[in-house]
């Protein structure tokens, strides 16, 4: 069996007496768009931070592309980190740099490229996510919420990573911008064969872009295809996919 893009085995995260994850398993195959959902406080962001190597788990292991994260040396960890792109919930653009400089920063840190290449490649990424050239020279404070999300995606794509982590990529966007963002993710996945792992609360996003869904319930993860997960008997999952909100969605979409 080929190595999974992301694999989490027996993850335990605990803060004081509060157990967030207790033997959590997760597996994302190459080329999937995997959506992580869960109620507030079920540890979605903690899971993401653990996978990214920003936080050491109490127990369990995280493998990216078949390589175990814990126990890697500094140089190897750096190479692993160049292999994934991340967008944070609030963008986390560097406020003292322009959008163009934000996108160039990973390239400058990881590669030696001539200045002309840096400019043109960064501009290519910025245009790829649907921002116009004028936005490139603006500072993050001058951008709208949707533009910040797109600029963050451009920065995540700067090194052409095969793996992308998105933390609530469409939260705070209007439905049309959110739909455009989902289309962009699907498009990038098709064209570039990316693997995408996203945390999202947006049912529309889940239906539009995700091939599989993992739900965090009771400190574990239940993962299945969308068709499978909506039939899951767990009450929270049932309420999430079959509740009032989901019905509103099906009315809107006529399904």
């Amino acid at each position, binding site marked *: 069996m080929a190595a999974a893009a992301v694999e989490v085995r027996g993850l335990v995260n605990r803060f004081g007496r509060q157990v967030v994850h207790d033997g959590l398993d997760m597996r994302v195959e190459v080329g999937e768009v995997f959506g992580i959902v869960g109620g507030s406080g079920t540890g979605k962001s903690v899971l993401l931070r653990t996978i990214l190597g920003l936080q050491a788990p109490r127990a369990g292991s995280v493998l990216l592309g078949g390589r175990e994260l814990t126990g890697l040396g500094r140089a190897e960890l750096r190479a692993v980190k160049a292999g994934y792109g991340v967008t944070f919930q609030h963008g986390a653009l*560097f*406020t*003292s740099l322009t959008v163009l400089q934000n996108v160039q920063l990973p*390239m400058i840190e*990881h*590669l*030696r*490229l*001539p200045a002309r*290449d840096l400019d*043109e*490649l960064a*501009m*290519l*990424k910025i*245009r*790829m996510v649907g921002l116009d*050239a*004028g936005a*490139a*020279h603006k*500072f*993050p*404070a*001058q951008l709208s919420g949707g533009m910040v999300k797109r600029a963050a995606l451009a920065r995540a*794509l700067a*090194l*052409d990573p095969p793996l992308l982590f998105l933390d609530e990529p469409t939260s705070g966007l209007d439905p049309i911008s959110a739909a455009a963002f989902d289309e962009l993710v699907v498009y990038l996945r098709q*064209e*570039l064969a990316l693997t995408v792992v996203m945390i999202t609360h947006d049912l529309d996003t889940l239906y539009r872009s995700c091939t599989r869904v993992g739900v965090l319930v009771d400190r574990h993860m239940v993962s299945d295809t969308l068709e499978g997960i909506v039939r899951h008997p767990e009450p929270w999952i049932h309420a999430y996919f079959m509740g009032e909100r989901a019905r509103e969605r099906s009315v809107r979409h006529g399904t």
Partner: protein
Amino acid sequence: MYCAAQRQGDELRLALQGEWRLAGLVAARGELAALPLAGVSRLAVDAGSAHLDVSAAWLLRDFLSTAAANGIAARFEGDAPPALALVEKTLAGVMPPPDPDIPEASQLLDPAAAVEGLGRHAVQAWHLVSDGLGFVGRTATAAAQSAGSLRRWRPASIARHVFDTGVTAIPIVALIAFLISVILAYMGAQQLRKFGADIFVVDLVTVGVLRELGVLLTAIIVAGRSGSAFAAEIGAMSLNEEVDALSAIGVNPIEVLVLPRILGLVIALPLLTLFSDLIGLAGGGLLCHLLLGMPLLQYSNRVLESIASTTFWVGMIKAPVFAVLIAVSGTWCGMRVRGSSRDLGAQTTLAVVQSIFFVMLADALFAVLFMELDI
């Protein structure tokens, strides 16, 4: 090896191989540049066995369009790489980006531009002054509005700031006050000994510490500690839209954020000054005892003789004034933070520089005033 080339008449067959990644961009460009293109009029590219990421596709596109400009017709054998289509689609029909407005070197030497720059700076300076005056005005208004009710003076918040700016500053203020009185006594003793006027060292220390140095050094330490802290706290809140949130809730941010800090410092700085004066006198006494062999009782008697009725109060009256200057500078700079973390740093720096400047300026004005009043 990123590609293998084979020449057939005027056609060059180019087979791309392996992983074309951003990390190997420079090497791949080197190989493409080294291709024997002289006399070639057709290019057949086979990308079937290579994998190109977006950056590599951009490089290939660059190469192909340069080739086309040199009259070489290129075609793909089999499918073009998918990433190339993405790049084509992204760049299609879009003009190259405009460069940001960076003045050319020649423009900088242009006399008209110099005059314009001077004017800009003058206008900016005027805006800064009027903004500062506006802030002082808004603060005064907020103080007047909340004067009527004790709850709106926020005693808990004031107490916190008295603790943060005053109590926690005691060790460093004590150390500095002690050292400065030691320096003063030591320097004074060296000079006054020449005239046999050793006893006047006490006058020097007493008057110097009480009138000037105690309050001035304390104010400078507090400007560095608390002026910067005020600017950074409020600046981070501005960046996080917390200041806007306060306004939206219907609370005046100046009443909540600025007034308690000013009042807290107005209480803390005089107390710190009193403490600093005491430590300074004690330090002077210790040095006189060790250096000049002066009994401590004689020192304390001499201190009481040299103090005029006004000496202590001349120093002390400055403390609340300095406190207001430091707190207003710090909070104002914090409120001015806009947009970026770099601005936060700049405003925090400005808060310290500005509050020390205002403290010095006020001290000079006090000196002139007291001289005119003959005290």
